[in-house]
């Protein structure tokens, strides 16, 4: 016997949870599916049949822009840190996206932790949806993930004709699930899809050997340095910080940035340590495949395929990994 929740019960459970929690879930409008905050009266807007959202759920913890703190001028300057008032449920995550969050955790929660990120992270429960019809560009199984991987989730739901199979993996998840209206049913679990495989194993060892290869200049020829790959990626986390100064008030604002933007490494005086198009372009792949792994134990890619899908000029990480494997010098 397996515990399942029917679609109707799931929605009314979410409606009920929305009274207490902020619910962030996939919603489709204007032809794009994005994670949005939905109130209890908007639960029906949640798209349960989406394939993959255009932007990743990292936006919830690491938003495009956020005020880190405000300094106001009273008698003495006072620093008011931003804070999150409500606990949240991030609903409808794909397992790869949960892994994306886990990868950002490694960098942002390592000591000293990024407190702004940590606060939102601590106050959020992750409910995932297993991927039963992955997109053609997905390759999670090649980089250690899987369509029903529950490692980085609090709860995983898997759709069947009888309802959603519920699995809780953490205390937080178990606690939340106790309130869910579930039934015991005889269920045949769905067959998980198999994905196209690429050979990613050993890539980290190969990267240093091809650093100076003309390959990077050639692929960079067509890159337009648009930031799209980094902004849609569930585990890219570069940012910029500036102060917004107005009368009696200073706001410190953090916004997304990316190694692909034109002035990313341009220093005062104009010197740029990544002066060529190829060097500029190469950074993305070296950060993901060489610099991150020895520190944090994983390559910085979940196999979600978003950059593959959204890159205007078809720079395809699967092709890059495969090409480097072939170069084997």
């Amino acid at each position, binding site marked *: 016997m397996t515990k399942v929740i029917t679609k109707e019960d799931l929605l009314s459970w979410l409606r009920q949870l929305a009274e207490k929690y902020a619910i962030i879930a996939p919603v489709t409008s204007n032809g794009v599916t994005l994670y949005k905050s939905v109130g209890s009266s908007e639960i029906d807007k949640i798209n349960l049949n989406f394939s993959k959202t255009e932007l990743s759920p990292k936006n919830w913890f690491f938003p495009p822009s956020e005020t880190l703190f405000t300094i106001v001028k009273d008698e003495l300057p006072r620093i008011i840190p931003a804070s999150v008032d409500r606990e949240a449920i991030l609903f409808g995550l794909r397992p790869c996206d949960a892994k994306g969050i886990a990868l950002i955790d490694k960098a942002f929660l390592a000591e000293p932790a990024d407190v702004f990120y940590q606060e939102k992270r601590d106050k959020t429960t992750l409910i995932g949806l297993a991927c039963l019809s992955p997109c053609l*560009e997905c390759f999670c199984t090649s980089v250690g993930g899987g369509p029903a991987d529950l490692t980085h989730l609090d709860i995983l739901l898997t759709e069947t004709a009888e309802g959603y199979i519920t699995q809780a993996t953490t205390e937080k998840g178990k606690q939340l699930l106790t309130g869910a209206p579930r039934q015991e049913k005889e269920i045949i679990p769905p067959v998980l899809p198999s994905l196209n495989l690429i050979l990613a194993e050993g890539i980290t060892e190969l990267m240093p050997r091809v650093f100076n290869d003309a390959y990077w200049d050639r692929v960079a*020829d067509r890159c337009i*340095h648009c930031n799209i790959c980094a902004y849609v990626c569930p585990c890219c986390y570069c940012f910029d910080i500036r102060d917004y100064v107005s009368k009696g008030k200073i706001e410190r604002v953090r916004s997304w940035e990316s190694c692909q933007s034109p002035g990313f490494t341009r220093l005062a005086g104009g010197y740029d340590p990544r002066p060529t198009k190829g060097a500029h372009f190469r950074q993305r792949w070296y950060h993901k495949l060489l610099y991150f792994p020895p520190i944090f134990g994983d390559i910085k890619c979940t196999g979600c395929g978003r950059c593959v*899908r959204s890159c205007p000029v*078809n720079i395809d990480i699967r092709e890059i990994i495969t090409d480097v494997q072939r170069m084997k010098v």
Partner: protein
Amino acid sequence: MIEEIRNKAKELLETKTVDCVIGYEPATDNLTSRPVFIYEPSQVNRLIFDETCVHNLSKYLINRRYKPTGIVAKPCDTRGINLLLNEKQLRRENLFIIGVVCSGIRKVRFNQIENSMPTKCQYCSQHTPVIYDFLVGEPVTEAPTHNYSDITEIENMSPAQRKAFWSEHFDRCIRCYGCRQVCAGCYCYECFGDELDPLWVGIRIAPGENWVWNTVRAFHLSARCIACGECEHICPVNIPLMLVNRKLEKDTLHLFDFEPGIDTEIVPPFATYKKEDKLGTGE
């Protein structure tokens, strides 16, 4: 068609007329296409041309302005080349343009070809390249027509409706600046969006700043946008940028009787001053 392009590219590279030909090759979905830079005559068989060749390759010429370069260009893309020549960003003698007659392409995304045409083709009446050294296909002589029904629709909205319409779209902009990076007309060494002193727009990715970005970007392209539709095509959150661009195109046409990129020589309205120029859109 494709044989003609490949043979010409091969000849150009073999005779060292150019040292690179920019064209299209199949993308990794085996369905659509992507830009390719061909440096060796032996590689010309990678070149393709079909209804998925959406990219405006003229942007790439800016990086190669001092190097002899061949380029495969659709009519809208050739308007981009004219724009850059007119603005003295390229040298004509360094270019070899393989123009391709085009009656419209398809709306594409990675691994997806739709049955419809992109906005740019729906309203395009320029089917023959406006500048070329070698033409592929039969030139079409058709008097260009102008249809701005989509723009009239927006103009007929009340200011409040229009504001709501654009808020809905601009609010979700993530300021990736993809619309700028892909644009042939955006080649400033330092874009106003990146400039710190003076600070035109803050880094905050939020409605106020997004409005500034999206409107000023469009204004910088008024009487310059050549309607290749690339910004709208690549926008990761599907913002209908061509509606802003085409509004400016319509106004420029009516006020100055000018269409960007059609000709290399005509001085564009914002590069000159004439006493008889009309002022404002209200006249």
